[in-house]
């Protein structure tokens, strides 16, 4: 029976999340958080943890809600809608990595802390080359008597410097491998990047002969590329969901403004120049919901289609969010260009969303390869 829609429970979760974030994460909080050192709104995250969101996809036996990636995407959409600050997505990726490949010890060490919303995770895979190739890391991990030593640098890490545990993509003589590195370990240096996005932190991590014990290796040595590919796809779906929420919000703002603002003695929304731009924005945004739902659903239930669906969702949403934000600014006119108006919070977030976990050009080429053009 074809049923491509949300269940009653999923719709209830969506409503509850929207209501909660509308109340708890107003633009004032986003701006306030931008001035804090770690970029994490602590009180909000404590409440999110209470709601169980940090462990949304974690089995109930391990303290989570036992839900799927689709439910996670619904929450991410709502977080995107309010341009929520903080390292939520990075934590989800580290959590997902632990669930897929973590040993009992690793899970017991990290999951309870991540679920409590006090410890945050980040995925560090990019380097100066900016390649999204999951086997493309040059950061070296050398085997030692009691574990590994890591040397190198990772760039453009979403959620740094606030995160406490960093999942690092490295290369050992056996091939691509993933390591869990505590930010507090000697030899780890974090540097915040300066970015136009006020809602998110992006940073750099430098590892100088950093010791990772045997428990530092996540999954098998030399076989990290597969796991990393799946994490990058999950990240792509997550950012796509965030973009959907953001795009919906900037479209709403444009429509609200066009209904209120008068020029030439008329509401500007009655001019076809504005009307058609708004209609094109709606025609862009509205249908992308299906792409996010399907990519999230495929991530859990259709593994063979998951990569393709993630590439499609990320390519389309990356572009649609930026374009919709640009047009929203255009409809707002001068006021939309000011620091005082909140619109630029989304406008700038859209730029990271466009590139994070692969930009549209990257994912389109990936799709072309998957489909065998």
């Amino acid at each position, binding site marked *: *029976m*074809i049923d*491509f829609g949300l269940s009653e429970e999923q719709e209830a979760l969506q409503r509850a999340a929207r209501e909660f974030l509308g109340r708890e994460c107003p633009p004032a909080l986003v701006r306030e958080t931008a001035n804090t050192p770690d970029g994490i709104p602590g009180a909000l995250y404590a409440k999110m943890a209470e709601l169980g969101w940090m462990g949304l996809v974690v089995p109930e036996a391990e303290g989570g809600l036992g839900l799927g990636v689709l439910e996670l995407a619904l929450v991410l959409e709502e977080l995107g809608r309010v341009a929520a600050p903080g390292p939520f997505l990075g934590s989800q990726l580290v959590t997902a990595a632990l669930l897929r490949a973590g040993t009992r010890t690793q899970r017991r060490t990290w999951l309870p802390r991540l679920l409590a919303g006090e410890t945050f995770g980040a995925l560090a895979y990019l380097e100066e080359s900016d390649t999204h190739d999951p086997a493309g890391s040059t950061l070296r991990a050398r085997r030692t008597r009691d574990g590994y030593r890591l040397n190198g640098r990772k760039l453009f890490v979403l959620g740094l410097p606030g995160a406490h545990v960093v999942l690092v993509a490295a290369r050992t003589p056996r091939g691509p491998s993933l390591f869990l590195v505590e930010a507090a370990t000697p030899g780890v240096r974090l540097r915040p990047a300066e970015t136009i996005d006020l809602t998110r932190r992006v940073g750099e991590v430098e590892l100088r002969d950093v010791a990772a014990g045997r428990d530092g290796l996540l999954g098998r040595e030399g076989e990290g590329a597969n796991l990393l590919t799946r994490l990058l796809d999950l990240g792509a779906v997550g950012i796509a969901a965030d973009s959907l929420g953001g795009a919906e919000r900037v479209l709403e703002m444009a429509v609200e403004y066009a209904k209120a603002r008068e020029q030439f003695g008329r509401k500007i*929304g009655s001019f076809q120049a504005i009307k058609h731009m708004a*209609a094109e924005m709606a*025609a862009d945004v509205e*249908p992308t919901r299906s792409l996010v739902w399907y990519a999230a659903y495929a991530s859990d239930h259709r593994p063979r289609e998951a990569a393709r669906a993630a590439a499609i969702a990320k390519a389309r949403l990356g572009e649609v969010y930026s374009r919709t934000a640009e047009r929203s600014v255009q409809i707002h006119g001068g006021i939309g260009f000011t620091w005082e108006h909140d619109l630029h919070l989304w406008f700038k977030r859209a730029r990271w969303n466009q590139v994070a976990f692969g930009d549209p050009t990257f994912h*389109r080429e990936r799709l072309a390869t998957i489909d065998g053009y």
Partner: protein
Amino acid sequence: MDLTYSPAERTFQHAVRTWLKRNVPKRQRDERPMEWGDPRRLAQAKAWQRRVYEAGYLALAWPAEYGGQGADVMRQTIVNEEMVRARAPGLIGLMGVQMVGPTLIQHGTEVQRRRHLPKILTAEEIWCQGYSEPGAGSDLASLRTRAERDGDDFVVNGQKVWTSNAQFADWMFCLVRTDPEARKHAGISYLLIDMKSPGITVRPLVQMTGDAGFNEVFFEDVRVPQANLVGGLNNGWQVANATLAHERNMLGATTRTQQTFQSLVRLARTHGRGGRPASADPVVRQQLADLAIRVETMKLEAYRQLTDTLRGRPSGIAASLNKLITTELNHDLARTALDILGSYGPLGRRDARVRDRGIWPLDYMFSLGLIIGGGTSQIQKNIIAERGLGLPREVRPA
């Protein structure tokens, strides 16, 4: 969320597929409406629809008393998909099946239903749509063809234009002005007109494709019985709006778009410049992937809307969004094919070096016609903005 057919639906799908494999006339594969002008083709096309109907694969969702099966949308969707997959010829009576039929079921009298519905299904009578006029295109409600009451009849005078299929249609469903004093939307009625009535002249218009697909229709003192009025006097605008929604759904044929895209990919892999297929060019790959994404979006949206329908949720402005998105997408597919074809692109159907039997330049033109027909993209954007987003209506002269 579930994207698989139930066992019963799979069985049904298999039956449809098997029937189509045995029955699709090979010579008529992919046949296009533009070929129906020829009387032999016309007879074949009517015979094909009759077979589909007799097999039980037409108008499944209609009530059983009017020749349907009262089936859910799912079965009709399966049939539509399989028809396209089997490259079955188009249905010549689609205007009747998808537009007049549902309108009569909703607004018609019992006599009208008994008279017309059976012949719509068997393609014994073909219908055309009399909406647009020389002075009433996007502003349809300003139409001026008038119908005046005289005894038991209306007397119709005026002109319609862009009327597809009028050259061989038996009936026309037509919008006429019955109250010139009323505000323009309020004085319109919906009439069923026998095309053999004295006083009707049909003059073919040649389209830019070179085919005579549509016509001008002139009415000079044409007598139409009052019994042919649908939905009450001066109520035609409401009746027609129900029909327009059907038309927009009709244009959103997802499966056909998927097939056009597959043809485009085949073209890109086999045609190129300097001995290199177009699909090896990174720019072309980007374009193809972008189109693939739009096709995929359309497919998933179709499933989402189907789910909404099955759950009994209102469709909102989906019809307008679909019309806008799918017609623009189909035009972009054809345009990309022409870009890939380079100097081979503008070759005519009969040229010895033409690729893919010349379908691409034809599609490029035909798909542009679909962006215009059935409510232009600009009109759809007005509807999306006003009814969907709630932006203020145009300032309109009274």
